[in-house]
C-alpha cells in the first residue's frame, strides 16, 4: 500500500503528513508526529489509555483510522497544558495524588476534560459513568473522583 497525505490540526497546529492507510490515529500521533502522551494499553478500545479529543469528542484513538481524522481537530493530553500552565484537571490530579504508575493518566485527564466541557457540574455517578471506559489498575478511582470534584467546585467558586 502506498502512503497518503493526511491533513489535520493537532493541539492547534496544522499538520500535513504521509501515513499508511492502515495506521491508526494513535500510531499517527505517537509514531509520525511524536506526541507520545496517549498510550496504547490494549489496542482494542477497552482501556481508554489512548483517549484523545476528535473535534472535541473523546475517542479511543487506537480504534480510529488515521485518515478518518483528515480535516479534523485533534486534542491530546499535550494540548491540555498551555502557556498559562496545567489544566485545572491536571493540577487536581497531582494535588490529590490521583495517579501512581501514570500510564492511564493521559487518557483519564483527557476524558475528564471532555466530561467537564460537556457537563460542568456532574454528580459523582455521572463522573463514574464518564470515566468507566478508562481503566486504572493503581488507584481504585477514588482519588480520580475527588480530583474531578475539586475542579467542579473551583469552577463554581
Amino acid at each position: 500500500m502506498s502512503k497518503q497525505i493526511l491533513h489535520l490540526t493537532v493541539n492547534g497546529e496544522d499538520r500535513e503528513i504521509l501515513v499508511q492507510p492502515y495506521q491508526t490515529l494513535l500510531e499517527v500521533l505517537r509514531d509520525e508526529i511524536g506526541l507520545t502522551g496517549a498510550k496504547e494499553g490494549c489496542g482494542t478500545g477497552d482501556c481508554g489509555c489512548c483517549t484523545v479529543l476528535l473535534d472535541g469528542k473523546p475517542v479511543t484513538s487506537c480504534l480510529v483510522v488515521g485518515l478518518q481524522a483528515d480535516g479534523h481537530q485533534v486534542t491530546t493530553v499535550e494540548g491540555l497544558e498551555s502557556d498559562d500552565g496545567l489544566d485545572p484537571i491536571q493540577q487536581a490530579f497531582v494535588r490529590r495524588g490521583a495517579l501512581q504508575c501514570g500510564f492511564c493518566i493521559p487518557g483519564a485527564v483527557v476524558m475528564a476534560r471532555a466530561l467537564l466541557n460537556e457537563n460542568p457540574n456532574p454528580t459523582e455517578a455521572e463522573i463514574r459513568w464518564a470515566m468507566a471506559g478508562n481503566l486504572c489498575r493503581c488507584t481504585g478511582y477514588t482519588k480520580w473522583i475527588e480530583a474531578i470534584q475539586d475542579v467542579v467546585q473551583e469552577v463554581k467558586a
Partner: protein
Amino acid sequence: MTDTLAIGQRVDRADGVGKVTGRATYVADLKVAGMLYGKMLRSPHAHAKIRSIDVEKARALPGVRCVLTAADLDHVDDEPASRAHAVLAKGRVRFQGQPVAAVAADDVHTAEEALDLIEVEYEILPAAIDPLESMQDGAPQVRQRLVENDDSEAQAHATVATNEVKPTSNKPTNVSTRIHFARGDVARGFQDSDVIIEQTYHIPHVHQSYMEPRAALASWDHQGHLTVHASCQGIFALRAELASILHIPESRVTVIAEEIGGGFGAKIQPIIEPITALLAQKTRRPVKLVLSRSEELIAATPAPETIVELKTGAKRDGSLTALKARVVMDVGCFPGGPLNNVCLLAAGLYKFPALEVDGFEVLTHKASQAAYRAPGAPHGTFVIESQMDALASALGIDRMELRLRHCIATGDLMPNGHPWPFNGMRQVLDAIACHPAWLERKQAPNRGVGFAVGGWMGGLQPASATVRMDRDGSLMIVTGAVDLTGTHTAFRQIAAEEIGVAADQVAITTANTDSAPFAGTSAGSKVIYTIGNAVKAAAADAREQILEIASRELEAAPVDLEIRNGKVSVKGAAERSISLSKIGQVSTAIGSKHTPVLGRGTTTVTQQSPGFAGQLAEVEVDPGTGNVTILRYVSFQDVGRAINPTLVEGQMQGGSAQGIGIALSEQLVYSPDGRLLNASLLDYRTMTAIDLPNIETVIVEVPSPYGPFGAKGAGEPPIVPGPAALANAVRDATGCDFPDLPITPEKVVNALRQAAATS
C-alpha cells in the same frame, strides 16, 4: 505526635506533573536512530512437539532484518531452568503463547507480517491443564527430566521459612514442590470438636493487568556492551538475569529504568528482555519490543490458581481445636510459586492448637506464573477468613468476637514453628470493630456486611543509597530503586526529615546499574522498609558532614549546632549561622579546604515487620440478577507510620480495588486443551469506575521498631483481605457460602436457587 518537617505530610509526588502532561517517558515511547521493531511468533498449542520451523519466506520479506529460532541461539536448553531462560522454545512447547521464533523489522507492521510467513509444523501432544488431574500418575508430564527448582522469585517477595518435603524419586513429576507443616494432635482435636466446618475453596488464575504492556529497548555497542531500557521492578535483578542468560559478565550490561506503567510483581521475571537483546545483537541495531494486550493475557506470567480443602473445628464455648488444610497450587509450566505463603496464612492467622497442612505445587501446560501483589496472601486469607465466618455462625458467636479471641499476637508460633514478628493484627481488628460501618450496620433484606483481615510478611534485602549536597545547598538522593508506587517521594521526605529541611529541598534520581548504589527489587513491600532505611542512613551521614563543615566555619562544636530554616546555626545563638547554600558553595569551590558532602547509607534489615490490613464491605445483592453492588467499602491498614498519607491511601484504595476484582470478576478462563478464552480487557474484567464506591481509608499506625520512622511496607497488604471481605458480605446478605471465586452473578443466582430448593 511530635512536629515533623516532612514525615506524615501530603507532599505532592515528584513524578506527578510528568505523568499528567504525558511527558513522562515509558519504554514504548522511546525512538532511537536505526531502531528496529521486534515481534514474537507464539505457539497456538499448549503442548506440542515442534517438528520443523521454516523461516525462509519471512527472512525474504523486504524490511525484515532478522528472524531467530532456537536453532540460532546458543542460549536455550530443551529443559530450561526457568521461564526467563526459555528464550525461544526448543523442540517442544509447553504453553499456549510460548515464543517459537522472533523477528526484527523496520516497522512493527512488517514484523507482524513476517510472523505470518513463518511455517511451524507441530505434533500436538496431550496437555495437563487441570491441576488436580496433572498431579495424578499418568498425566502428561510438563518436564521431561528433573531440573533444580528456581525459587529466586519467591524469595524476592517474602523471606519466610518453609518446610519442604524432598522428593524420594528421581522421576520427573508434575508436583514440583511439596511442603508439610504440623503441630499438635489433629485427629484428637477434631474428635473433641462440637462444630466442624469443611469446605473446598477455589481461586482461579488472575492477571496482574498493569496498564502498560511489557516493553524493552536493547542495543549493543561496538565493544559488546549491552544497554537495556526497561520497564522493570528491579534494575540489578534484571541485569543479573540478562548476564546469566546471555553468558556475559554483569559489568557488560547496563539497565536503565524508564517509567514503569505498573508491575504488581509481574515485571520481575525478564520474559522479553533476553530475546530483545538477542535480536539487537544479531542485527547490530537497537531493537524495541512491545507486547500486545492479548500477548500479555495469554502468554505473560499471571498469578497461580489455588484449590484449598480446609477443615476447622471448635468447641461450643468458642475455643478452637484443630485445622487441616490441603493446598494445591497450579503454577503453570515452571515452578516457583508462593505456595508457602498460602499455607502459612491459611493456618497461621488464628491460634489453632493442632494443625496439619499439606501443600502441593503443581506444573501444568499453561503460562508460568509470577508474583501478584502479596503473592499467595489473598488466597490463604480468603480460605481462613471465609471459614472463620462459617465457624462463628455455626457456633452462634459474633464473628468479630471469635476473631479477637483467637487472632495471633507477636510471638505466637506460625505453622512453620517460627514466632510471629511484631505486628498489628489485633489493632487492625480493633479499628474495624469500633468503626461506624461495623457498629452501625443494619439488617435489611438482600444486604450484608462482611469483613476480613490478613497480613503480609514482607521481604528483606540489603540496600544502599547516597545523599549529595550540590553547590546551591540543595540535596540529591541517588538511588537504584524503581519507583512503582511513589516511594521516591517518600524517600525525599525521609531524607528531608533526617537532615532538617523541607521535602522540596531534596531531589531524587534513579541512576542506572552502572552508577547507582545497590538497591533491591521493588517488590515484597520492602522499598520503604529496607531502601528507606538506607536513604535515612545516607541523609544522617550527609547531615553529619554538613555540621562538620559548619562547625569549622562557625567555630562551634557540631553537637551545639542545629539545622533550621535552611541554615545551620549555633543553638541558642541564631545570629551565628551559615546557610546551607553557603555550605554547598564552600564544599565544592575551587581551592576550598572543605570536602564535598556525600552521605552514604548501607543497611540490611534482618527483622520483618508484617503489615496487616482489614477491609469491610457493605453489599446489596439483587436476587433476580445475582448482581452484587458494593454500597460501602472501608480499607484499614497498619502501615507502622504513614510517611505520606496520600501515597498510603493510594496504595490502600488501589490494592482494595484489585482484591475486589479477584472477589467479583477476574478470572483467566482456559479451554480443556489449555487455550485462554478471554484474552482481552473486555472479557477479562478488571474493576472500572462504575463497579466501585469511594474506598474509605483508615490508617492504623503501630510503629515498627525497624522501619524508617516506624514505617512498615504498605504496598501489598491492601490486596489481601478483599476477596474474603466480599465473600463474607455476600454470605451475610444471602446466607450462602461462596467458596469459588469470582463471585459472579451466575454463581449468586445458582446459590440462591439451590438454597430455596433445599429449604
